[in-house]
């Protein structure tokens, strides 16, 4: 308290920070957080690998070569081959497609849906709020892995179903955060003012509330991506996610597991890939949160 009075200049940066545009925040992130920039670069590399997978490898992800199964790493097969003779490096590249898609698509769905529901609950209040939030409570009560497993059981295997399952599991926590922000914004003077001059509710929600929830939505987005990737890999690892001969990292760990003691790289390579991408998204998300949300500052 005293320092603040004593030395306004010490805090000038944060004061500027509040009125910062998104672009400026990104520039500040670039300037101040080298780790976040590096993480963004790593993610970019993974995206390149996923997009250009067919150009980077002569093999197909499902090409079996039973004569050359369980090969150790060599110049022909950089990371060796699995129990059906599929090239592990190739499957790693194609696996990036699934992990990135699973990280981004269901997270996007859950953020959009969760935000919509959260804004409505917070803004309309009353019974609507009570019903929506009780449903969210129920969703949040489940250990997420078990809920995802049950949904996958019901829907059946396949990547679209994984998207649905993860989106269903994750929307509730987003709704909770956005709802509490909406409640705070609802009391703000400019929303009061908009109401007083008779602006329609729908317009207030879209024009005044939603834009102000955007920073936390972006932060939630980047921080939920890694947990979605981890969730998919766990589901595939347990055999209720992506199925062979598709190439998903969690699945590769699982198929490699029976040969783990003799051929550890079969499981280790995809594990490390998961770890790196999750870490990169975590660093980037942390960095974004630091520049975008003054309340959550470290």
């Amino acid at each position, binding site marked *: 308290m005293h320092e603040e009075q004593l030395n306004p200049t010490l805090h000038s940066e944060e004061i500027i920070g509040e009125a910062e545009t998104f672009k400026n925040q990104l520039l500040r992130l670039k300037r101040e957080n080298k780790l976040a920039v590096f993480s963004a670069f790593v993610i970019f590399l993974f995206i390149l690998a996923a997009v250009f997978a067919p150009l980077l490898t002569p093999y197909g992800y499902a090409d079996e070569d039973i004569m050359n199964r369980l090969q150790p790493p060599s110049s022909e097969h950089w990371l060796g081959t699995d129990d059906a003779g599929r090239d592990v490096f190739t499957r790693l590249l194609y696996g990036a497609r699934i992990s990135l898609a699973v990280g981004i698509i269901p997270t996007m769905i859950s953020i959009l849906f969760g935000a919509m529901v959260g804004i409505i609950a917070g803004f309309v209040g009353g019974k609507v709020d009570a019903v929506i939030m009780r449903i969210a409570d129920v969703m949040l009560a489940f250990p997420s892995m*078990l809920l995802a497993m049950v949904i996958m*059981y019901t829907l059946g295997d396949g990547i679209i179903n994984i998207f649905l399952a993860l989106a269903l599991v994750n929307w509730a926590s987003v709704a909770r955060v956005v709802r509490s922000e909406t409640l705070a914004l609802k009391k703000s003077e400019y929303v009061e003012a908009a109401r007083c001059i008779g602006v329609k509710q729908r317009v207030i929600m879209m024009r005044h509330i939603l834009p102000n929830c955007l920073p936390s939505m972006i932060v939630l987005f980047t921080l939920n991506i890694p947990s979605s990737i981890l969730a998919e890999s*766990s589901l595939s*690892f347990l*055999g209720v996610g992506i199925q062979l001969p598709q190439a998903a990292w969690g699945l590769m*760990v699982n198929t490699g*597991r029976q040969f783990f003691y003799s051929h550890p790289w079969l499981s280790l390579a995809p594990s490390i890939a*998961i770890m790196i991408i999750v870490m990169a998204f975590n660093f980037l998300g942390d960095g974004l949160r630091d520049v975008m949300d003054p309340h959550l500052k470290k």
Partner: protein
Amino acid sequence: MLKSIASRIGQTLIVIVGVAMLIFFLLRIVPGNAVATMMSEHADAATIARISAELGLDKPWYVQFWIYITGALHGDFGTSYALHRPVKELLLLSFPNTVKLAVLAALVAWIIGVLAGIVAAQKKNGFLDRIFMGFSLLGVSMPVFMVAMILQYTIAYKLHWLPISGGDSLKCFILPAIALGWNSAGSIARLTRSTLLEVLQEDYIDTARAKGRSQMGVIVLHALRNAMLPVLTMMALQLSSLLSGAVITETVFGINGIGRLAVDAISGRDIPLLQGTVLFTTVLVVLGNLVADCLYTVLDPRIRKEA
């Protein structure tokens, strides 16, 4: 205080009913006949009808729901289709193992997480801080199965210090507990660090220092208790993720716990078992959250008096 706890219990009951309903309907909107999916593709119509009748799946859904709810209230979750044993029996058999695993993992997470968080906050931006925070990020970024398999490979397979899998002795639970707790330890360390740093800025910390307390005294007697409040809330959430992780840890280490039961239920297409396992586990989590909430109320006098 009693009033707030009472309303909290009321909310919990609503959530439990909601959970029961959701599980019930999720497992019955399987496209096509649930029994047909449970069985292999080439089961004949007569068998399907017989099994449906056996499981009560031929009755209208509201009758089924009534049977399911009243049964669950009496602790009767039906009979496992694949294992031909009451689900309740299977649950009671697996439950102690999961509890043992979860408690040990929570201990690992708590002790490592809180200590690392305190040290990191103490040496803010110092060498130890960077090391611990790096490790905690590694902790939250590694998939549970990866930690589990690496521990299994190094400690058990290469060094022979601990058994690879199976077994009921405490020794067999050490590696699984570390694998499961590792993840939570990372997030607890990060949260402890950040809340502690925040609390250390509070005016009452100055007061405690002005009284002549040492740095350690200030942290332990004044800062930690306030900083632990959010950490406690998080611990309750961690119970849920511990049980999620237990599914994988139990699978990797071959522990006969509830998570493994759920995986078996899915691969055996065993609806009663899956239904019972998920319901039981979720209710456990909900009750755990309730206990944490009450504990929070007791620890924070501001909330205690609000009611």
